[in-house]
């Protein structure tokens, strides 16, 4: 049964230095508030897992939280590079970042295998590319029935999965809808999980096509209204595309980045203060 707690307590109790942590979300419902809380609590040595590390992983990498990243596409969607990620890989700033790289299809298969309690996932992929030569968690397996050689990816079993959803009830049952990404697989593959939600409700109204994650597979639920910003929460608020565009200039320069993080994350107590500060002025 999930405990309904504050985000601060959830992160303090469930995420330790050195953990493998997956903050998932495929463009939609990205758990920014939880990432900010990891930064405030100065987590170090994390292995970050995600198909599409974007701005929140750029921020965590630039603040020195991570020593390793497992991923398949690391960019600012529609805008360009992640400058803090690049600086860590190209120049080791603020600390060197080791990488383990897959394709989206490979990462998806690895999460699905983790959720299914299998040691590896299988897919038609990677053949002829340079990826397997650089990624120890990608290999090959022969089909016992047809003899076909297929790509194998080691299952992902994060210590902690963190996802954001629209709603949970007070018993900790979670419902999310719209683009659902790999959140269900990430939660089921992980040893522990934190779900932040836009809203705690007395009763979840069933929605066609929604993903429901029952309370008994979730470790902690925390309310974080606006917690996906600058990503979005379908039915609550839109993607802040202007922020993603503005992030390019903020993150390009180490000093400007550090000052922005100090003011907007370290000097704010929680997602409400962060949101209030952003409402005051431009994101830059």
């Amino acid at each position, binding site marked *: 049964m999930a405990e309904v707690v504050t985000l601060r307590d959830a992160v303090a109790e469930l995420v330790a230095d050195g953990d493998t942590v997956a903050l998932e979300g495929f*463009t939609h419902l990205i758990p920014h508030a939880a990432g900010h809380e990891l930064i405030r609590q100065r987590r170090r040595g994390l292995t970050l897992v995600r198909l599409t590390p974007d701005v929140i992983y750029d921020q965590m990498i630039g603040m020195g939280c991570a020593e390793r990243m497992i991923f398949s596409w690391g960019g600012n969607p529609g805008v360009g590079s992640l400058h803090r990620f690049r600086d860590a890989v190209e120049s080791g700033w603020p600390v060197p970042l080791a990488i383990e790289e897959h394709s989206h299809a490979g990462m998806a298969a690895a999460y699905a295998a983790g959720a299914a309690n299998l040691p590896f996932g299988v897919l038609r992929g990677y053949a002829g590319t340079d990826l397997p030569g650089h990624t120890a968690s990608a290999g090959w397996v022969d089909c016992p029935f047809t003899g076909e050689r297929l790509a194998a990816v080691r299952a992902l079993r994060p210590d902690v999965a963190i996802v954001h959803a629209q709603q949970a009830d007070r018993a900790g049952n979670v419902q999310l809808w719209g683009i*659902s990404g790999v959140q269900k697989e990430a939660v089921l593959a992980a040893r522990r999980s934190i779900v932040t939600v836009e809203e705690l409700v007395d009763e979840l109204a069933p929605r066609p096509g929604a993903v429901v994650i029952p309370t008994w597979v979730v470790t902690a639920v925390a309310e974080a209204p606006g917690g996906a910003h600058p990503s979005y929460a379908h039915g609550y608020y839109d993607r802040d595309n202007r922020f993603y565009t503005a992030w390019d200039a903020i993150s390009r320069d180490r000093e400007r980045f550090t000052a922005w993080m100090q003011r907007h994350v370290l000097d704010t107590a929680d997602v409400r203060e962060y949101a209030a500060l952003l409402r005051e002025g431009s994101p830059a």
Partner: protein
Amino acid sequence: MSGDGHTAEEMMAIAAARRLRDGANCFVGIGLPSRAANLARATHAPGCVLIYESGTIGAKPRQLPLSIGDGELAETADLVVSVPEIFSYWLQGGRIDVGFLSAAQIDRYANLNSTVIGEYEHPRVRLPGGGGAPEIAASCKETLVMLRHSPRAFVERLDFRTTVGYGDGPGARERLGLQGRGVSAVITDLGVLEPNPASCELVLRQVHPGVEVADVVSATGWPLQVAERVEVSPTPTGAELAALRALRTAEEQP
């Protein structure tokens, strides 16, 4: 800007859009491919089914999305599926007609690099990485590639092979077990290349209006094969240009 007032960038989008036949379903990468695919849907191919890797199938965005997961894609889609499902049942299942990709580098066999410039362990430029591209190019029935022509992009040797076009040449896709036919055209801001069916090597088939064959050869980092008869791409029509200029992201709206 050419004499009749279109840019090379616009010509590239229009030439790419023309390649997409009405009724095809198309797995769309963000950026140049998304712009071209939405242009096709707004002009000659209203029945084109756009599929984004966020799991949105049959998306009909009114504005151009900035990311592959903008809310409007989900709101206008015929169905929305999870990421494991889009890659396994739909793409790997062999159900997608056309994959539409871009990249930082391409070689003569239409292999693509979107991973690093320089050495993998100590890259000069760390690029975003493969994302959906490796399996899109492996499994779609055919693949279209768009990128801007320059010797830095059209290289003798890729720094990293992220995505397989024709591998090392004839027979490579079959040996690797890749189910799709491979890259059918590379559309650039200068012209259109297509693979020679026998050698699998890219051949210049088409130049855009105002572009000389020599311009394309000198913008290519390997000795480019040129077709015996190089066609000139039809000049963009007023309708094509108007439709393209009306396609903007929300941020680009006047």
